């Protein structure tokens, strides 16, 4: 970009021109400013250029004032669009897709995980069917859980807010999934009831704060598998850096989130 630091205008004139362009001057102040800028060559064009930029930034596709809970009206790479949040009230259409997604999960990661784990990881791609459990007032946890394992409440520390949930049954085992959202991204936290599933062979293993985490990848989705109180937990979603999943998975809240 060509620089225009060597402006023929003094700093005082630049400031006045900005205020004029922004409509920040009224009455006598405005008249005085116009007098001081009277000698500026192409004053009208200079004002128009200033206003063109403010118009582009304030009148473009990004709303000037966004209300609470509004979707981000921001440019995102096409590859990330699939991971953007959707309302969980998708109804029958999404439900009809569920079976297909589960089949896809089996096809996508059969060589690295047991079938149950593969299917459980696929639950994170399905829509929520009910509200998320309530946040506890006195601990960074969500109310309820599965077989004594509670879901963490990350809203206060990481900004990821519980957004919806669903219950499923896989191979006779109950599963509960809570969906979390942050800045247009969605991740899923699934707890599988019963004895822990075998961690997949060939997965990358990391240890964060004593928590063993198996890392997998399914297309655009990252998957973290770990054990809490003998139950298999699966964190999955499209994130910019899978370290995010590791950080969230291993968060203990000083021992409140038990492993």
């Amino acid at each position, binding site marked *: 970009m060509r620089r225009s630091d060597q402006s023929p205008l003094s700093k005082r004139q630049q400031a006045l021109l900005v205020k004029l362009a922004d409509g920040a001057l009224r009455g006598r102040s405005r008249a005085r400013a116009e007098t001081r800028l009277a000698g500026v060559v192409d004053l009208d064009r200079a004002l128009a250029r200033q206003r063109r930029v403010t*118009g582009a930034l304030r009148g473009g596709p990004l709303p000037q004032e966004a209300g609470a809970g509004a979707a981000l009206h921001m440019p995102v790479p096409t590859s990330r669009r699939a991971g953007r949040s959707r309302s969980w009230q998708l109804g029958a259409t999404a439900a009809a897709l569920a079976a297909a997604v589960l089949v896809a999960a089996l096809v996508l990661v059969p060589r690295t995980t047991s079938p149950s784990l593969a299917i459980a990881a696929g639950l994170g791609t399905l829509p929520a069917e009910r509200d998320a459990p309530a946040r506890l007032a006195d601990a960074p946890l969500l109310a309820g859980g599965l077989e004594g394992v509670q879901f963490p409440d990350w809203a206060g520390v990481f900004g990821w807010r519980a957004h919806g949930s669903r219950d499923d049954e896989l191979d006779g085992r109950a599963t509960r999934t809570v969906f979390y959202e942050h800045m247009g991204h969605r991740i899923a936290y699934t707890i599988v009831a019963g004895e822990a599933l075998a961690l997949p062979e060939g997965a990358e293993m990391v240890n964060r704060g004593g928590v063993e985490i198996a890392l997998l990848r399914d297309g655009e989705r990252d998957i973290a598998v770990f054990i809490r109180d003998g139950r298999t937990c699966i964190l999955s979603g499209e994130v910019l850096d899978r370290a995010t999943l590791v950080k969230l998975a291993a968060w203990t809240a000083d021992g409140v989130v038990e492993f």
Partner: protein
Amino acid sequence: MGVATHEMPCREGGKAQLEPERLAEHGDRLYRAAYAMTGSAADAEDLVQETYERILRRPRFVRRDREIGYLLRVLRNAWTAHVRTAAGRRTQPAPPEELEWVSDNRAEPEVAIESREAYAAIAELSEPLRMTIVAVDIVGLSYAEAARRLRTRTGTIMSRLYRAREQVAEALEGR
């Protein structure tokens, strides 16, 4: 025990704790600012995440009308720290044509294109000019509040704003 986030009382002087709900309310503007600063959607998301984490690490009490200015300052500090520690690792800004914009029915196509180009041009500005146009034209701070947050004089803010807009205008005219 983790951070308590519910029903924190207001302090004297009209300050209230910045809670996740309040952060979410400023999310769009903060994200736009981050995008303009970094020139990359990926970096912008990371930057906003880092900003949230910094703020939520401990209770922050801010006057309601100064929240966005405060957030911008934390955002800028986070970006500065990132640039210092990860110089050269910045994600390449995505060319405007590779970005998918979420449609807004209120925006005419030509305005949307112009807006896209303007954001791309802002990412190329020098740091002082970029922060100034982000603070005033994107975040919506007054000249005085921008000067306070960027620790400079109001006159300097207006002068920088003029030059920043001039450079962006040049980019728009040259496209």
